[in-house]
């Protein structure tokens, strides 16, 4: 429908868009500062995913690629790779947690041409900046139970938690990790595309740790089960043993779709899966981890969505309700990362997670 007064309409839309953008910028900055001050600097912690283990190896882009030609994923290209597996947010591997993999296409602590972070579950627990803030606000963790109110209020959040939580996984290696929020993919042909990434074990292995028929309460109650025999660090020990004995080999896949002006914003919604018939997952690389970093090296690692080529970077966001605002928030969290590094330098390294009976904990100090 053509507006009655196009010029006024344009001005009005421009003002609204500017306001939305300002709110988004302010929200991202404010959140980053809060995290930096109250978590990164004062506690020397990441925002989440503190409980992890890192390793190094090499990534090989497959010789035969079916994706459009681009300047980064060039057939046969090799990259040094550093990965970090983690459990969010508790310091206890036996709890029902979301597990993650973070990829860095270098052996540096931070510097890299391409970083990407992925979690278990095909969908997420939040879908835009507004939902993320609500997610953070309604955590209300106590004794390993959290997000009770959030899951009650937000069905998609609950669904995401049910899909993403992994209890009693047999290994970090056999889980499936998804980047969820789409990113830009612009090949040499200059056609704009959107991309999602995922990492699977190289071999076709059944994913472990998927809860069966979980309820709201199961999602919120992440505590270890009664009579749990697994230790606080069992996944990290298993991964260390695996890498040291045989290595851990993975497959990196991509899902692409061509951008259109009239695309439904829902395609950016990380809660909505792209139809795999129309947009199939295709292999782009494999990588093998053959060495484990110690706790100190692992803790110093940091990943950022800003570590990407421009043509593979994040998509612009318009407001805190825009699905792409999640990556916008991530890209504005540099300050928090720097503050954590500064804090580690000043106050020293955080200790490794002990193998004691302090179960269901999210902090070292208890």
């Amino acid at each position, binding site marked *: 429908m053509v507006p009655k007064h196009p010029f006024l309409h344009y001005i009005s839309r421009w003002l609204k868009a500017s306001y939305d953008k300002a709110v988004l910028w302010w929200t991202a900055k404010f959140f980053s500062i809060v995290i930096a001050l109250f978590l990164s600097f004062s506690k020397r912690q990441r925002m989440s995913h503190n409980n992890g283990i890192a390793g190094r190896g090499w990534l090989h882009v497959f010789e035969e690629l079916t994706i459009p030609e681009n300047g980064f994923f060039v057939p046969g290209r090799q990259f040094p790779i550093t990965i970090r597996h983690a459990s969010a947010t508790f310091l206890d591997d036996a709890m029902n947690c979301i597990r993650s993999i973070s990829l860095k296409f270098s052996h540096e602590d931070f510097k890299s041409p391409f970083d990407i972070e992925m979690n278990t579950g095909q969908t997420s627990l*939040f*879908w*835009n900046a*507004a*939902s993320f*803030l*609500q997610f953070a606000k309604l955590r209300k963790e106590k004794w390993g139970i959290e997000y009770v109110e959030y899951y*009650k*209020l*937000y*069905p*998609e959040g*609950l669904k995401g938690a049910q899909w993403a939580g992994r209890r009693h996984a047999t290994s970090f290696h056999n889980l499936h990790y998804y980047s969820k929020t789409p990113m830009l993919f612009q090949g040499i042909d200059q056609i704009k595309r959107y991309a999602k990434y995922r990492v699977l074990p190289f071999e076709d292995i059944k994913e472990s740790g998927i809860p069966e028929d979980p309820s709201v309460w199961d999602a919120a109650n992440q505590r270890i089960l009664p009579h749990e025999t697994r230790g606080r660090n069992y996944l990290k020990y298993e991964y260390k043993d695996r890498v040291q004995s045989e290595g851990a080999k993975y497959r990196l896949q991509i899902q692409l779709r061509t951008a259109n002006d009239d695309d439904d*914003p*829902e395609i950016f*919604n990380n*809660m909505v899966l792209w139809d795999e018939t129309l947009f199939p997952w295709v292999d782009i690389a494999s990588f093998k981890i053959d060495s484990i970093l110690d706790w100190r090296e692992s803790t110093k690692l940091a990943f950022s969505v800003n570590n990407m080529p421009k043509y593979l970077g994040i998509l612009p966001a318009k407001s805190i*309700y825009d699905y792409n605002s999640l990556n916008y928030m991530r890209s504005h969290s540099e300050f928090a990362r720097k503050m954590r590094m500064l804090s580690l330098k000043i106050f020293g390294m955080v200790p490794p997670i002990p193998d004691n009976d302090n179960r269901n904990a999210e902090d070292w100090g208890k």
Partner: protein
Amino acid sequence: MEPNNKDSVAEIIQKCKRETKIHYLHNDGFFIGKFWNINHLEIGYSKMIHNPITILVEAFYYFYKKFRNFITVVHDFLFPRKPKIYVDKLDSYLTGIIIHDSLSESRDPIHNVKVEFWARTKFTFQFRKLGETYTDQHGCFHLNFTLRKARRFFVRSLRIDILLPKDIVYVGQKGTVNWRIFHTIFIKKKNLIGLGYNVHSIALPIWEYRMDTKVPRTYVPKEPKLAPEVYDRKRVDALIQQIVPSELTKTKHLMQIKLDPKLLTIDEIQADYPMNLTQCIEKKLPGFTRSDAWFEERIINGMNKATLMPDVTDHTKYHIKFWGVCHYDFNEHYALPDVDIELVKRDNALPKLHAITFTGPLNAYQKDPWQKHTFRPSDGEKWMQAKRVARMVGSVVAEVDEHFAGTHVNVEQYAIAAYRNLRRNPIATLLYPHIKEVSLINRAADKTIIAGYLPNATALTYEGLTDRVKDIMGLLNWKHWKPMTPINEKHTYALAENLFWEQVGKFIDRFFEENEVDIKKEWFEVYSFSKDLVLHSAPVFGSDFHSSDPREMQRMKDRFDHGCMVYSCHHIDATQAVNGIKKVITPITKTEKFENDADFQNAKDVCKYIIMMATFSHTWINEQQYDDLGDIMYNCGGLRFGLKERGVMAPESDLTIAPDLTRATQMLWFTNFLSRTEYGFITRNEEHDVHPYLIELLLDKKADFAKLGVDIEAIESRTNI
């Protein structure tokens, strides 16, 4: 005295009917009419109600009412709830499930409840509708809306309104449901973050069944906002205006009695209330109201509308039976024997009164419940006294069995089931106008009459009354019900009932024909309606009764046979059992989706029955209460045994058996205000909720009804008093 000139008698009766008929225009004052005159005919002569203070209070009340109405109009003008939905891309949704807030039963989901999502603006407080939907069969709703519309800067607050049907309004032949906000959930704007927002289980007391009653009754929470329905404001105004005069009169009497009972007499009490039909006739035709002819007329065509049962051995005779206390809990103060009235057939006339037989005690000394006493016209004074006792028992039966159980509670059981389940099915628009407010008035009746007046003024205790109502309900079923068969053209009640039934039948046929597609489409509502109806219906009469006394068992069998004659319940399907209890009501359908035509016919039949009970059947008794019970000496709800050996077989002048002062004023009070509803008539259609075709059909037969002594414009559209 038997008057000779029958034409003049008929004229006098008609004149008295006109004189004592209550007229009320709800826009007028009640104490003070249009010309500031006191309307004695309507409100009686009590000084309590026409002194200057009362008139001043009434003036203030009118001022308040007008001011209240003005404020409502201004509010609706300033803050309208426009139907336009502010929507762009539907990118978010509200979800939840609405269930019955039942503590002791399973919390069943509530289907087809309307859910609306509204925003209110910051500075102008305007309402903006953001979306609307209905709950599905599982009580779940999924209301889509545009996130940015809800989170606009100018939006001050957000609310989810859960709406229930309030009433129906007909514009032309099309009825639309008006919804009222039953429950509101406020949600914080900042909590809307895109995609879904779950408000979870919303347990609401929407037409819950009471668990403390033996028959299906509506639970009405104490919190007025949670009441399943509310009276229409005009109805409340009319009720207040009509109750206040008789309430004031009664209050004055009770104060006088408390101060000194000698300050008051039965005659003075009677004089303070408006004149009733029998008093009017008695003034013009002394003795006529105590005659056999008047007795026959009132028992057969009056409030009692008694069923004439052919004598099984003598085909020239009929019997009318009124069952007394039977096995129900009773007090020792009042008489209530079984009554068997024997009448002899006559051509072109009502049957002639021949004998009256009482079974049960007639005095305080002979307590044998099976003793029999027969009286005949040749018994002189005793015959007059026997007629008075029979009238009294007939009135209790009419009030308890026919009026309260047969119409009020009977209609209420359909009302609860209908309101619980029918919302989008066109049957809702058909039934709502006729079942509205019955639950509310029944609740009021529980307190004032069932637990108030009746246990104090009749032989039945509260326990006895509730047991009796349950048993009567065990005879009432929509299936196969038919109106009374007229014996001849003098049987005006039966003729009028048949005529009304015929007109309602035509109306139902056309309604179902016009709405067939939608009725079948929303068949799940009919299924749920039927399910609730059957599940909560009373056990079949006598199915839960056991006695070691064979006479008691035989009486129950006789009562069942009599009940089947009265209520057409020969076809009760005793195999219809729920949890081992034989249920009286036949299911309308047993399938969630429409499958067979027999069920469609059942739906028609049940609607026809409900409308008949709620309108004609109720009005008939209700409007004639003051005619038959508005004269203390002529008739009452309970004659006391007294202390003499003759007991209730005593002349009217023996005030020791008549109702005492308190009971007398209470009786006149309640029969007076119950008879003067004067709001909610079919043809007057004050609330524009009655289907125009039904009005048209009834007005077409106005002259025919008038010939039968029925003013069709005085038939109420619902059981609301």
